[in-house]
């Protein structure tokens, strides 16, 4: 009997495909109409931190260097008020096997897939994660299929995305290159069903547990280098896994650093628009993922998302494309480190944040990513110009997404701006209310929702009145 492969039919089979492709029954964690037992779901993975460190060190993941950026810190101090200009450190996650922190996220999934006897792994991703899954799969003798949104309807692919696809192929993966649209998930399900491979979704407990080691390492390295804890750890934020995993690792290590999200502000551009697709110079780390995933994590490709960023987020900074390109260039010229621009999103936020903090305080930028042809700010700017985007020096505040990229004239113009956290929390509650009317929420549901936005029940009760 042949399967019905229409969009509607495949989406309707989502739950059964998920169960077969991961071996996780999400239904058992349900505790209310809205609530589920998040910690139990995470614990049921059955891995201690030591287990994960062992898994990761066997496939060239983790234990990446931490560097203090003395010259950048000095430059920031020159433009800051007296006494201001925190020390900036960066964790060089580009040193992982696949060139980004995503190797941590793929490592546990690959281990589980191998243990459970799956023949291969599948992931739908914009890129770095695909390379990570491909790299981990290669090391564990698993086949790998990466499904990637690459081209607009004219067949034009953004250089960064093209490079990320190349890297997946370099590790032996089959790369399915898609035109623009959310149906990526449809084809993902279809391929999981056809092959019986393991679903290496970004949002499983395995993926997030894999990032917890990053938080542990940050705490340990900063303590060893400075004798104290970092004051803030700033995280490039998209789907929320980087922030969630890092924050959980910091907490497990007893580190109380503020966890600050940072995304490139791409407001005004529609992420599923064919026209807008090649008018943006960032393919991840931007608000197009960062805001929707923070305000409703369960929109992910698994029934319950293990990446729940608002649970752990203390602050959220937004930066412009031009600001990130400027700081990426400065990283090369001042610090002698050439790294990919998307990973430098949080570095850009750190420059702005450092000006607000005292000189004895410490900010950790918790990732870098590899760079190369296509995955480079010069490639991105050159391509943007070809797409009709105006590129110039000036005040980045004047830039208009999809029309212009304005590279700061000086470091003083790298300011970023704040995302309103309470607005995000209210947006989360509105999304939760769409799932189930708050009048029907039990005490368990309320406690879950409050924890999911890092607030207490009292705050939640008041917030629900104004919904």
């Amino acid at each position, binding site marked *: 009997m042949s399967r019905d492969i229409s969009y509607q039919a495949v989406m309707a089979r989502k739950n059964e495909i998920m169960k077969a492709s991961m071996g996780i029954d999400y239904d058992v964690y349900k505790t209310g109409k809205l609530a589920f037992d998040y910690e139990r779901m995470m614990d049921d993975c059955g891995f201690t931190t030591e287990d994960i460190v062992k898994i990761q060190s066997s496939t060239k993941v983790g234990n990446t260097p931490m560097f203090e950026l003395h010259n950048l810190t000095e430059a920031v101090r020159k433009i800051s008020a007296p006494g201001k200009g925190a020390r900036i450190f960066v964790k060089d996650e580009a040193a992982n096997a696949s060139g980004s922190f995503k190797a941590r996220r793929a490592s546990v999934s690959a281990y589980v897939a191998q243990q459970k006897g799956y023949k291969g792994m599948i992931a739908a991703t914009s890129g770095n994660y695909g390379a990570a899954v491909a790299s981990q799969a290669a090391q564990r003798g698993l086949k790998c299929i990466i499904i990637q949104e690459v081209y607009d309807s004219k067949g034009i692919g953004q250089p960064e995305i093209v490079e990320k696809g190349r890297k997946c192929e370099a590790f032996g993966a089959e790369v399915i290159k898609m035109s*623009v649209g959310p149906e990526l998930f449809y084809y993902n399900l279809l391929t999981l069903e056809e092959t019986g491979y393991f679903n290496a979704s970004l949002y499983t407990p395995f993926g997030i547990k894999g990032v917890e080691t990053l938080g542990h390492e940050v705490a340990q390295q900063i303590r060893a280098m400075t004798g104290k804890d970092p004051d803030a750890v700033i995280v490039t934020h998209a789907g929320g896994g980087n922030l969630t995993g890092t924050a959980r690792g910091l907490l497990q290590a007893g580190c109380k650093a503020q966890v600050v999200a940072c995304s490139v502000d791409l407001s005004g551009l529609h992420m*599923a628009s064919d026209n807008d697709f090649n008018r943006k110079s960032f393919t991840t780390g931007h608000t197009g993922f960062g805001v929707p995933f923070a305000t409703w994590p369960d929109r992910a490709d698994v029934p319950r998302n293990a990446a729940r960023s608002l649970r752990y987020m203390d602050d959220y900074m937004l930066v412009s494309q031009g600001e990130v*390109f400027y700081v990426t260039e400065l990283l090369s010229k001042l610090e002698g480190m050439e790294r990919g621009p998307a990973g430098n999103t949080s570095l850009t936020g750190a420059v702005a944040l450092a000006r607000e903090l005292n000189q004895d305080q410490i900010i950790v930028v918790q990732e870098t990513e590899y760079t190369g042809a296509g995955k480079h*700010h010069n*490639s991105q700017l050159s391509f943007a110009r070809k797409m009709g985007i105006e590129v110039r*020096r000036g005040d980045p505040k004047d830039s208009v997404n999809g029309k212009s990229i304005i590279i700061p004239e000086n470091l003083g113009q790298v300011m970023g701006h704040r995302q309103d956290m309470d607005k995000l929390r209210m947006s989360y509650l509105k999304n939760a209310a769409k799932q189930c009317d708050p009048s029907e929420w039990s005490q368990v549901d309320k406690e879950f929702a409050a924890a999911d936005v890092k607030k207490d029940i009292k705050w939640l009760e008041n917030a629900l009145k104004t919904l």
Partner: protein
Amino acid sequence: MNTIKSGTWVEIEKTLLTTEQRAPQVPDDTKKTPYLMRVAGFLVSDSQLNDEVEVKTLSGRLIKGTLKVVKPHYEHSFGDTVEELLDIGLVGSKI
């Protein structure tokens, strides 16, 4: 027409969803375009460009589609010179 030998590394294109079959939440501009996939693989039998063919992919799957590119390769680069970047952060310059 030149025959492309079986076993050649090629890229095919396949329409997964026509404009009518696309997901309901797709914005209007995207909905006007079919949902396409491209994949590279080894050509199963001798064919010509734009033929409907079958390829064996790197994972060993057999996929049918239109033969679009023979020996697909990557040409992405560091791009044209972006002069706006050149003087950022030079030694001795004001930052």
